[in-house]
């Protein structure tokens, strides 16, 4: 299996990359390549132009500034999974990174590439949503931010516009994250999530108890937040009974994916099970 022929450019700067995207409307961006090259080999994607972001310096970093965790788009899963800072500040993201693919994939694959690819069964999207991350995007002559909540728009579809490049992922660390976790049922062949659940608990303001965020991947056309569950648990103690009761509403308004691994009923059940497991793990610290 061999990709169809394409032209290739490896710009050294973001501006150069943006210019290339303007010039080649059907260009595809190559980050770690762990998803794109696979689909190109199967000729499910046949871009005429590939713009490789791998030569642009300064897009791989993890740092904390002013109450925000900043992660460069070209930071690899391995760098995230082995970052003490991420484990400490946003454990759900580290747990998601650690469970992606395998060593080799984690060594190459990047957070920006994964989020922009928006595979419905990828691991990061759940953590990104539950952590209320923000995508920083550079486009022709401007920069904008896209909150996680509006980032995923469909199957392999995001709010990124043609000509834009995702450059950074921001995770707000205030209010303080008390606990977070990512739990997943792995597909035995692909390693993707049959269902993945990320839960984040933040300190509530002025003694109002905790704020709860719960998001799922693998279950629907794109990752989603279970807002009814979040509302039901807001300010509540995260106990098994409370969680179980709240999880009954986890799939409200969401159409479950169906495939060989899980039909809709089973998937909805897994959403409840893994959602509860992620919440309880987050609640445990």
């Amino acid at each position: 299996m061999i990709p169809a022929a394409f032209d290739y450019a490896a710009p050294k700067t973001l501006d150069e990359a943006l210019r290339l995207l303007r010039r080649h409307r059907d260009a595809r961006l190559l980050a770690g390549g762990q998803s794109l090259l696979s689909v190109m080999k199967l000729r499910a994607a046949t871009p005429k132009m590939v713009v490789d972001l791998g030569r642009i310096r300064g897009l791989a970093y993890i740092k904390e500034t002013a109450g925000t965790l900043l992660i460069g788009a070209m930071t690899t899963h391995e760098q995230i999974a082995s970052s003490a800072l991420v484990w400490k500040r946003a454990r759900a993201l580290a747990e998601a990174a650690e469970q992606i693919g395998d060593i080799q994939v984690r060594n190459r694959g990047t957070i920006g590439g994964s989020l922009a690819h928006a595979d419905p069964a990828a691991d990061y999207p759940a953590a990104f949503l539950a952590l209320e991350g923000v995508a920083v995007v550079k486009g022709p002559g401007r920069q904008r931010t896209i909150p996680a909540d509006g980032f995923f728009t469909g199957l392999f579809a995001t709010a990124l516009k043609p000509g834009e490049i995702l450059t950074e992922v921001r995770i707000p660390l205030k209010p303080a994250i008390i606990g977070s976790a990512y739990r997943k049922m792995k597909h035995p062949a692909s390693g993707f999530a049959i269902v993945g659940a990320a839960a984040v608990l933040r300190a509530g303001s002025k003694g109002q108890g905790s704020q709860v965020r719960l998001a799922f991947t693998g279950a629907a056309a794109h990752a989603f937040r279970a807002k009814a569950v979040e509302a039901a648990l807001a300010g509540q103690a995260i106990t098994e009974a409370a969680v179980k009761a709240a999880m009954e509403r986890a799939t409200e308004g969401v159409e479950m994916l169906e495939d060989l691994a899980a039909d809709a009923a089973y998937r909805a059940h897994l959403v409840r099970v893994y959602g509860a497991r992620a919440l309880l793990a987050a609640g445990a610290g």
Partner: protein
Amino acid sequence: MAAMTMFGASIKRREDPRLITGEATFLEDIRLPGMLHAAILRSAHAHARIKAIRTSRAARAQGVVGVFTGRDFADLNPLPCAWQAGGVKNNVNTPRVLEIDRVTFTGAGIAVVVAEDPYAAEDALALIEVDYEPLPVVVDPEEAIRPGAPQLHENAPNNICMDWSCGDREATEQALRAADVVIRQRLINQRLIPTPIEARGAVAQYFPATGEYTVWMTSQCPHIMRLLMSAFVFGIPETKMRVISPQIGGAFGSKIYLYPEYCLVAALAKKVGRPVKWLETRKENYVATTHGRDHITDLEVGARADGTVVALKVKTLANLGGILSTIAPGIPTTLYGRMLSGAYRIPHISCNVVGVYTNTGMVDAYRGAGRPEATYVVERAMDLVAHKTGLDPAEVRRRNFIPPEAFPYDPVGILAGLKYDSGDYDKTLRRALQMAGYEAFRREQAQARQQGRYLGLGLSTYVEICGVAPSAWIGLPGQGWGAGLWESANVRVHLTGKVVVTTGSQSHGQGHETTLAQLVADELGVPVDDVIVQHSDTLGTPFGYGTYGSRSAAVGGVAVHMSLQKIKDKARRLAAHLLEAAVDDVVFEGGRAYVRGAPDRAKTIQELALAASVGYNLPAVMEPFFDETSYYDPPNCTFPFGAHVCIVEVDPDTGRVKILRYIAVDDVGRVINPLIVDGQVQGGIAQGVAQALWEGAVYDRNGQLLTATMMDYAVPKAGFFPRFELDRTVTPSPTNPLGVKGAGETGTIASTAAVVNAVMDALAPLGVTHLDMPLTPRRIWQAIHGRKEAAR
């Protein structure tokens, strides 16, 4: 004298240095000057008439040397079916090199591009235009045999390839009527994809001056390939073809067969006048290489209240796919129906197998081949009897075991004249239960159930048939195999004392270059490193049938042993001459021939080899050189057996199965290299467990394979397994002088049933008695959920 202990020694494999350094030459590594690359266009439809194929655009593409369709090879015969179900009519339909006007499964080859490099070949595939007339599709064998189903082949009414039976149906039915309990169960043995990590491939070169072909191919049996290609497909003298299997990256049965592509590449090499290489992609491997298993079985088992089984009646639909692979009909008949007595004395057995064509990929032998299916039926039956009678499953097995004194045992005639050679089935069961801590486990299980945890223990006390040979039994007059099934070996001791073994066996992971050398080292008293084992090239090795069915030690190894006896005898006679002693007074032992009572009057094997080679001073009637060939055709097969125990925990929330422990006590007869046998057993267990829990090929109703990549088809990973706990008993096979039985398939044959029995044991409190494989979380959760719903 250290060399005398090689039989039974866990020495390091001699084939490994080239493999761990990347030096080995696998098929993909072969490059010949001027070599071209072929890529095959495969049918997008499962059932269709091909109205037209337009190749001109592809032919004009850059780097393309030629584009061909089936019409370009109309002079070649369809591939042969070399093993047909014995004693019944087989409605045979086999592939052509490229199909010409009709396809019966998605993935059948219909055109080929030959280009300067593989990139250009693959690019050009997209430029070939095909007009299909889609025909109605049937993928389910039960639907395929119903009136009105789409018909795949004119000569196979109702899509039936063959209808085969064994045993005494009337007596079995009568015994079932008289039984205290009768259990009926439908069992689905799902379709599997063998998935060697190396897919298939071939390279061919044609020499116009002599009209000779050399074909490298990923084959477990190069001699058979040459025979079938030259005599059946090409219609040329066998002497015009040389077949070489290079280093083979795993096979598990899928590389036994003659495939269209091997013939195609040879034909192309002649057509284009340059060497041609074809490498299968993984996707092609999944759609166009053979699959395994795929049975729907209705089982009826009758027993007395004390658990004694009185009758077993089995009716099986075997899905053979859209067209027949080389030995497809033989697998669900001889290797399945004839093994349905299992390890038990069952007085009445009856089996009917209907082989069915459907619009799916070819199905043929996959590791275990028929015997895992039989073991699954029998071992599930034992558990169903235990469940119904309320007896312990271990006890039910004990009550039905063939006792040690009953060997050789004839399983009421269903083996068509063969008998189980030797066994002590209870011994392996006792040992396995002891390792498992059976009584303690049952207590733990009862406690766990109180806490809402679902632990289960499953048994599989199997027997299998290996060393498949007796030509007179397996051959056309008997079981329908279209030739003999003996094995060959030549042993030569060169002037320098170095030993060259050539064998018709074909090693693709089994370690023959080590184990056969161990046999030589012991018998001739030479260091293992002085022995080289050559195989896999029709030039320079004696005709042999190759490696499959766990036959290479029990048949091929014995052929080596026989040649060694001839060499030892000649060495003794030569030594007697040189030492001026009577032949009867000369003993050959530990690499030396000496005069009895005078151990100093001796010649080493090296001295004797030198004398035999130079030929200066030989007895009057003796030919120079130690060079002996043997063809070993055993009097019987061998019957390895054992007891496997699997312990699982089922998570009722998700339906996930976790294997907590896996214990295997096997008896494969005498063991040449324990480390290698352990490896065979472990690998086999992994494959069998994978069938129980993860693997399954799935077609949609249009005949498209939904599990066509490794992202969909769950080949197990390292983290899926616990550490397997192994032990062995040794019951030598009386069939052959080495006492070996065969170890390549035991793990696969035994383990599937052990795992399923364990999961059913775990789910027993929920009232679940049977679920079909693979036991995915989804399937288990649905069963649990259904029970809970019903209970509400």
